């Protein structure tokens, strides 16, 4: 069961910056190539990267290069190509931060055709 609230999932197209910044998990909106369109406060605090720096950069090559493998980026690419991205898995981030186990949910919203990366520190 994903940690992402149904509220957020149902309103991805219209969620305001304030709403996403209030979430207690990371919310990153990316285009099909992984370029960051929105990067919320939780994710900024987790990664130590300000939204103003992250937005416009590529999640997989520049902001979170630790996701550059089949387990993470590979799943994203396959899901986007197949038009049915919805993957949940455990991961460990180690890039420029203390090693942090997280839960990840990759999701493509069919209604708005947008791609999302949700991240939450593992319990």
């Amino acid at each position, binding site marked *: 069961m994903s940690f992402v609230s149904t509220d957020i999932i149902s309103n991805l197209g219209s969620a305001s910056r304030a709403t996403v910044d209030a979430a207690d998990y990371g919310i990153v909106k990316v285009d099909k190539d992984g370029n960051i369109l929105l990067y919320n406060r939780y994710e900024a605090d987790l990664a130590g990267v300000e939204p103003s720096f992250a937005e416009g950069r590529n999640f*997989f*090559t*520049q902001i979170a*290069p*630790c996701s*550059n*493998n089949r*387990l*993470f980026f590979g799943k994203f690419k396959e899901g986007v190509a197949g038009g049915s991205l919805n993957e949940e*898995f*455990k*991961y*460990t981030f*180690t*890039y*420029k*931060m*203390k*090693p942090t*186990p997280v839960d990840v949910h990759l999701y493509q919203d069919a209604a708005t055709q947008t791609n999302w990366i949700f991240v939450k520190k593992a319990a």
Partner: protein
Amino acid sequence: MANLLENAVPTSWARRFDALWHELRSTRPEALTAVKEEVARRLQEMNVRLPLASVITSQFATDQWMPKFEQILKAGDVNDPAVVQELNEYAESRLGKLRLAAEAMSDPDDETDLRNCLVYWYVEAKSEWFQFNTRINYNLSRKGEFDPVLVYKAGIGSAILADLESIFDDHEIDVLAEYLFQPLPSAYELHAARHRVA
């Protein structure tokens, strides 16, 4: 110290600074941070750039880094003495390579070669980090295993990498990141581009 700074001549100043720095480290270690900040402020006012070798030697000194490593390990609750020792040795080996390069190429005229060595170090260290990171997450995914030595080596390596990035400009970091994201395809592209031009 004030007189030393005010009468500074850039090339000889760096050597005098190094001697003073070593003396302070052994006699008044508690004064190091304040001295470093004062030096940085005075340098900015005088528009003097420290030789790269001096920057590397002081930025990657063991006493600068040990408190940071202790913080990383403390945050992760790593207190097995054998693990802590292995991680300290790993950290010191990484830092040592940087300092040895700076020591070998300490003359301002050596800076081009020193910068090249730093690029090689960066590529080596980031490549190793990519390998660690991939192994960590495959172990987690396939076996549910979490290897603290591997995980904390990745964390320490990445912290040193982040600090070294201050030596390069943003574009250089982006170019290296792009190359390292897919090194073989990037190398093929470069090879093809060079042969087309030729």
